[in-house]
């Protein structure tokens, strides 16, 4: 039986179709291990070999990877949620209610999206903490730390824009409190210091630009929806690509050099 199965597996992996997809073969050699990473678009972000200490969970806490995983989970669940959600003040809350009560696994979908988003905020903060504690921002990784700080901000902003979308009391007032700050921006906010009172008013300051109105309203919902689903994830993806690429270009995962 076992022999038979091995024979079958060999037959499959030796077939032309299989070999057209996976070219590296299955000998237990360093060459194959290297090719398996280099020839795979999903794995080629990795170098073929890394130092042994990088495998150590105690050293890395795995937090950067977890952050990326959480981003992927929110992207997948987010796309699924978009099928059921309309960013219009009349519908938004009803659609979320429908997700909870009518749509099969809708509640689970929404839960996973929300908790993965919270998980991402936690893991990104812990990732920054780890990178600081190990001094991994030092030369030659200064610039990548800066990219990481921007990504931290983007994570907060992604989570914050998503917070409004359920359009319930919790969302509405959390975003009201959060965006009220903007009116106190020096020069550019209508209640901020040094704002020229006859030029900067509450209907043309930075808060207005963010909300699309003088209070959180239907246009805010649409603005936050577009920021949350398209604009910010796009920027986040580009910066993540840069961040990961720089990890390798700056000498791989940090260690005592």
């Amino acid at each position, binding site marked *: 039986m076992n022999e038979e199965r091995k024979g079958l597996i060999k037959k499959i992996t030796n077939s032309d179709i299989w070999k057209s997809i996976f070219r590296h073969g299955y000998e237990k050699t360093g060459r194959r291990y290297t090719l398996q990473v280099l020839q795979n678009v999903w794995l080629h972000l*990795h170098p073929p070999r890394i130092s042994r200490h990088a495998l150590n969970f105690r050293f890395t806490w795995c937090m950067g*990877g977890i952050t990326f995983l959480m981003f992927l989970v929110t992207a997948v669940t987010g796309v699924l949620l978009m099928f059921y959600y309309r960013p219009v003040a009349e519908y938004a809350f009803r659609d979320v209610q429908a997700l909870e009560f009518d749509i099969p696994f809708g509640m689970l979908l929404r839960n996973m999206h929300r908790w993965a988003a919270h998980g991402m905020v936690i893991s990104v903060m*812990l990732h920054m903490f*780890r990178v600081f504690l190990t001094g991994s921002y030092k030369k030659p990784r200064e610039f990548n730390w800066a990219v990481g700080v921007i990504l931290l901000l983007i994570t907060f902003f992604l989570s914050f824009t998503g917070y409004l979308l359920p359009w319930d009391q919790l969302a509405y007032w959390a975003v009201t409190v959060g965006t009220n*700050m903007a009116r106190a*921006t020096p020069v550019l*906010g209508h209640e901020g210091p040094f704002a020229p009172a006859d030029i900067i008013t509450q209907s043309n300051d930075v808060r207005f630009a963010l909300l699309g109105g003088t209070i959180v309203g239907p246009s805010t919902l649409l603005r936050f929806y577009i920021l949350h689903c398209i604009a910010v994830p796009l920027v986040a993806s580009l910066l993540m690509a840069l961040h990961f690429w720089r990890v390798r270009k700056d000498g791989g995962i940090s*260690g005592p050099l």
Partner: protein
Amino acid sequence: MENVLLLIEKPDNVPILAMLFLIPFFMWLAYRQARQTDRTGVPSDAALNDKVYVWPYLCRNEFVCAIIIMLILAVWSIMIDAPLEEMSDPAKTPNPSKAPWYFLALQEMLVYFDPWIAGVVLPGLIIAGLIAIPYIDINPKGKGYYTIKERPFALSVFCFGFIILWIVLMIVGTFLRGPGWNIFMPWEYWDPHKLVPLTNVNLSYLFGIRDEMTANFFGFAVVAGYFALGPVFYFWKGKTSKFLQELGLIRYVIVSFLFLCMMALPIKMILRLGLNIKYVWVSPWFNV
């Protein structure tokens, strides 16, 4: 007590509860490794050159880690439902109105500073300061391993900022702030009509200054004097300290400015909570 139990039950507060355990755990983990490095010395080059293949060793680790995390996330999502309150109503303001949990440290700062500082300037400085860290920390040691001995200043400043001024304030904002943004201890009842008899006065008033113009100049002098601590320290130690000379004037100005800005928050907290000081500097345009 019921209020705290209610707060703990709130699904959105699960991350904060998790942080209560995660932060001490990772602090302990880092501390243990730092102690080990400090005792036995920095790992040698040989250890770093000990290479392994990414496939299968690293990929296996990533895979196992991803499975464990997805398992936790799945259990979390099945057990606890995301919150959904009643439909938004601009006419019905909840008391207290709280920002999402990760912004509660910022909201907490609003108690001590006006919105333009707490909501705009200080967050901006936090971002700028974080980005500046690699460029102002010129200590070449402690790169790529846990240590305490080799970089005590950098570690203590960052940990103070991250643990005390970010995480602890977040926890305070979540669990101790009740109606009217008053502090309620866990055992206290959340009374929406709680009155806190506070007579906050400005610093100038405490010094007996009643005239507005004098108060303005006095406040300016105090704030300027506070930020002058940086240059004063430089003139005092700059000639003799090898560290300051290596750091250079420009880096020193940035480090001291950021450090003084960061310490302004706990100082203002102490002034407010201990002495009921409202503003340090009242000017016609802004208050500090």
